[in-house]
């Protein structure tokens, strides 16, 4: 029963929290750039408007896929907090990302296509990390569910410092922050003209926004895995990490995808792989 309640709460609150965080992100970004910036509720106004606006559809396939993106993104978070097997959720998470790739790629337009390909590369760059991260968490705690990890006496962050470090790196990619916002960007001057969402309009963009809010919430949940002795501490750590991402976002240029892929694999291999190896060697 408790699981059902937590799942329902997540499904309801995650977009709210994600939206507020996105709004705070925009305000802080503006302030870092010396501007006033939009009101805190701006992301909600944007989504509200997008839902009211006409949608020009280029093909009939994109919208179902985008709804799939939203649904699976919400589901993967819900599965985690709802007590499903952690390692299984990573595949649902990947499926959600894939839906977005396919929605963009289903339009045979050069910019959407390039965005889709880059998002696929982003998936390739981050997926190994998420698999290894969850495997490491499971290995360190001996648990296989969110509840199990929280109940474990092992302090995950202490056991997995390398993985946590790598998480910070990979989160930059997943949060679409500079220097790793290669597949989509809210910055106006971008060679891909938003890439993934180039050919979406109206409510179709709203689905992408909502899904991203769920994704942000899921990343927050992932951080609480590391701070399994105190969920509030985990959330605070996530906020701190997010603030750091915003700072880096405002202090770097956008990298090329080749660098994103190479560096993310290197970080995954060295920090996550190294930590995992240590875990296995010390386990006996």
């Amino acid at each position, binding site marked *: 029963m408790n699981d059902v309640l937590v799942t329902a709460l997540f499904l309801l609150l995650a977009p709210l929290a994600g939206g507020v965080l996105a709004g705070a992100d925009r305000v802080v970004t503006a302030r870092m750039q010396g*501007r006033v910036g939009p009101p805190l509720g701006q992301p909600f*106004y*944007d989504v509200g408007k997008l839902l*009211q606006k006409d949608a020009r559809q280029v093909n009939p396939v994109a919208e179902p896929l985008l709804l799939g993106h939203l649904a699976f993104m919400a589901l993967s978070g819900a599965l985690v907090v709802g007590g499903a097997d952690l390692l299984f959720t990573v595949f649902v998470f990947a499926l959600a990302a894939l839906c977005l790739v396919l929605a963009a790629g289903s339009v045979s337009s050069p910019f959407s296509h390039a965005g889709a390909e880059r998002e696929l590369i982003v998936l390739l760059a981050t997926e190994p990390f998420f698999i290894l991260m969850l495997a490491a968490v499971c290995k360190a705690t001996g648990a296989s569910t969110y509840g199990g990890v929280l109940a474990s006496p092992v302090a995950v962050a202490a056991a997995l410092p390398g993985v946590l470090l790598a998480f910070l790196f990979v989160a930059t990619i997943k949060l679409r922050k500079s220097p790793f916002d290669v597949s989509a960007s809210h910055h106006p*001057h971008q060679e891909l003209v*938003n890439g993934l969402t180039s050919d979406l*309009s*109206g409510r179709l963009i709203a689905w992408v926004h909502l899904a991203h809010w769920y994704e942000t919430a899921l990343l927050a949940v992932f951080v609480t895995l590391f701070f399994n002795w105190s969920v509030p501490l985990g959330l605070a750590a996530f906020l701190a990490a997010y603030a750091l991402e915003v700072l880096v976002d405002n202090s770097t240029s956008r990298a090329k995808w080749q660098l994103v892929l190479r560096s993310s694999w290197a970080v995954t291999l060295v920090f996550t792989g190294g930590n995992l190896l240590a875990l296995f060697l010390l386990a006996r």
Partner: protein
Amino acid sequence: MSFFARSPWILHYDGSSCNGCDIEVLACLTPLYDVERFGVINTGNPKHADILLVTGSVNERNVEILGNLYRQMPDPKVVVAVGACACSGGIFARAYNVQGGIDQVLPVDVYVPGCAARPESIIDGVVQAIAVLERKREAAA
């Protein structure tokens, strides 16, 4: 106020402007004018945009482009002519390759005068465009 008034996303197209008005449009985004205060995002993509800001006049070649951009914007949408050239052809109205203001091609809702149009005027124009956007949404609803 509906969501439209709080989230007007703009698309800027340079018809055949001298860059003067273009850079003033861009300057509106930068810290000293910061139109993001009004929820404005410079989208660069007609499919995301609510307001089309056009600088520069119409010539033979950009008729087609302007038409495509306008058509690709989902309803409701508003066109703002920024600067003398976009409003009327300005000083270049008599040049052989200039057909005149963009209202030759698109239904212009707001005219922003000036050569170059000042950022304050452009902000005025956007604010007025938001009101037009709101009226159009109500009319459609």
